[in-house]
């Protein structure tokens, strides 16, 4: 079977593009870049005599370069910044966790990818982006000093502080055993270098945090960026300082932020807090039968979507996925009873929620939330069920399916600019529903938009919508 990553990221026979990903998962980037390099070697497109050109020295680019070099292939890397992992250095508070996606498998709590040793060149550990960047950058520097071109390793030439765009425009897959890349190689004029293959790993940092198509309707509003902005809803229960949060999006990013806004933490940390709160009430949130039901639904949906080639019944499996999670969460909360549900909610939800000082609106475009991992899906379903149990009549969380933010209007005199200038300023938000009708929300002082990454392919290539699911990941 041909390497599927190679097929998915192919622009031409010897030109490959990773930046068409619409998701920002670091694990996805590392695995895909590894698989593409292995595919290029296996197909003999690159070898000891045919070099690889990599655009970008971020996580995917450096991972690809080391992987190829350790397989005896020489590599040129063109990087815009003076240093590697520049985007990661921005993420000083956003935690990366390579295994939360794998919940409920046991290794989920280890903070390490189970097949990491030898699988991807860069280590996959749970840490902030900036912490990973520091460790990766130091070891990349060590690798360049000690392994580069030594003992059967290919040599890596890092061309830093250089914009890749002029070179990308000069890529010419000759179809005759190589790729010619015309560009300002020597700084003066255009010259040509030949490679066995070209791989673009640039532009993963761009997100859809505003209305790209009709910016006037959003008055230039920019929501906080998932990756780089400390939007004040980080873990640790800091006061939000806002009264009405709107979260738009149905994927993992939106679900994580819903957890953070409601409970002040997300992922495994929130799971542990919920478990501890339930244990204090002599209750269990996830019994064997519940877990089995979740796993079956998750398994069916993911198999139906493997490698983004929806199989027969994929839509039904997807709908059943969410229905099962919601039903199981509701059953768990019902079994708890009102008193214990209130006690768990008191331990987990933000104090502002209990004090009536916080309202949250969550909306997403489709009938069900999108392609999100089971931990996020389960935690959001559980939080929603708890909200319903504690506030049966006037819930502080409202959820709108098949809906989108249509317009955002700032108050008179306020000019939308950056997420920081808009935070805490009451904006009016109009939500349009697919079935007809509009809902107007007044005084939303934080609008969080999680509509995925904005693909910026340097070399072309079809957008890749979803992350690699476990069935795609080699074991």
């Amino acid at each position, binding site marked *: 079977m041909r390497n599927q990553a190679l097929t998915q990221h192919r622009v031409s026979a010897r030109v490959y593009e990773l930046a068409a990903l619409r998701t920002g998962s670091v694990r996805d980037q590392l695995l895909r870049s590894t698989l593409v390099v292995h595919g290029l070697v*296996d197909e003999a497109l690159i070898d000891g005599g045919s070099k690889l050109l990599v655009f970008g020295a971020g996580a995917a680019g450096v991972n690809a370069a080391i992987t190829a070099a*350790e397989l005896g292939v020489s590599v040129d890397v063109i990087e815009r910044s003076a240093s590697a992992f520049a985007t990661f250095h*921005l993420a000083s508070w956003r935690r990366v966790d390579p295994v939360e996606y794998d919940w409920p498998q046991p290794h989920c709590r280890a903070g390490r990818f189970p097949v990491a040793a030898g699988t991807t060149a860069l280590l996959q550990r749970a*840490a902030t982006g900036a912490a990973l960047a520091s460790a990766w950058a*130091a070891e990349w520097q060590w690798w360049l000093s000690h392994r580069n071109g030594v003992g059967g390793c290919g040599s890596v030439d890092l061309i830093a502080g250089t914009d890749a765009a002029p070179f990308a425009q000069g890529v010419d897959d000759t179809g005759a055993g190589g790729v010619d890349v015309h560009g300002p190689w020597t700084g003066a004029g255009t010259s040509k270098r030949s490679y066995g293959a070209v791989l673009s790993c640039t532009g993963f940092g761009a997100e859809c945090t505003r209305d790209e198509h009709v910016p006037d309707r959003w008055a230039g509003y920019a929501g906080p960026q998932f990756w780089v902005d400390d939007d004040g809803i980080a873990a640790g229960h800091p006061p939000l300082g806002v009264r009405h949060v709107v979260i738009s999006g149905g994927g993992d990013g939106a679900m994580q932020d819903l957890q953070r806004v409601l409970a002040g933490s997300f992922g495994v940390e929130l799971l542990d807090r919920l478990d501890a709160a339930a244990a204090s009430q002599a209750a269990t949130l996830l019994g064997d039968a519940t877990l089995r039901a979740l796993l079956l639904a998750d398994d069916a949906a993911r198999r139906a979507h493997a490698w983004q080639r929806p199989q027969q019944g994929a839509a039904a499996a997807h709908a059943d996925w969410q229905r099962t999670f919601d039903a199981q969460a509701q059953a768990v909360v019902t079994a708890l009873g009102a008193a214990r549900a209130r006690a768990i909610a008191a331990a987990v939800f933000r104090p502002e929620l209990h004090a009536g000082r916080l309202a949250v609106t969550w909306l997403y475009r489709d009938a069900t939330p999108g392609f999100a991992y089971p931990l996020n899906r389960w935690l959001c379903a559980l939080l929603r069920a708890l909200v319903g149990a504690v506030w049966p009549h006037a819930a502080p969380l409202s959820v709108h399916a098949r809906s989108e933010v249509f317009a955002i209007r700032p108050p008179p005199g306020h000019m939308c600019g950056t997420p920081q200038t808009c935070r805490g300023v009451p904006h009016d938000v109009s939500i349009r529903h697919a079935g007809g009708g509009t809902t107007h929300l007044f005084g939303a002082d934080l609008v969080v938009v999680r509509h995925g990454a904005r693909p910026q392919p340097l070399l072309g290539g079809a957008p890749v919508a979803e992350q690699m699911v476990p069935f795609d990941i080699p074991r």
Partner: protein
Amino acid sequence: MTRRRGCGTLAAMPKRPQHATAAAAGLAEVPAVTEIAGFWHAVPVLQVDGLCVALAGDDTDIGHACADVAAAMRSAHAASGTVLIAPGRAHGFTPERRRELADLGIAIVPAAGGDLRAAAQALIDDYWRLRREQREHLLAFAAAARRR
């Protein structure tokens, strides 16, 4: 040896490092940390192999701390720098300026608690742990590539 093809190639990789140990990785168990006064503004800068950490206390101009950590990085040939700021303190940089700093390998990190030195020590400990793991991992990765 038959070359494995496609995705299956990764299956040949070991699940755990077979030979690489912490000792083999060549990095000390505990990092050697030195403290200097920053070149431009005398901001305290902790230096460890590969990383410089400037401590921007409540009264420190964060721009000055950035200048000092950048100078320390150049002097020590460190790949990364961190400006540690007190919790809740805004750094005040525009997104463009933050991007420029990140391009130089400098991160602005809010401390988890009020004691900046303790926070810096925790940050350095984490960095060293991750670095040692990455070193071991690279050695295992290289060994696996040789066997391929």
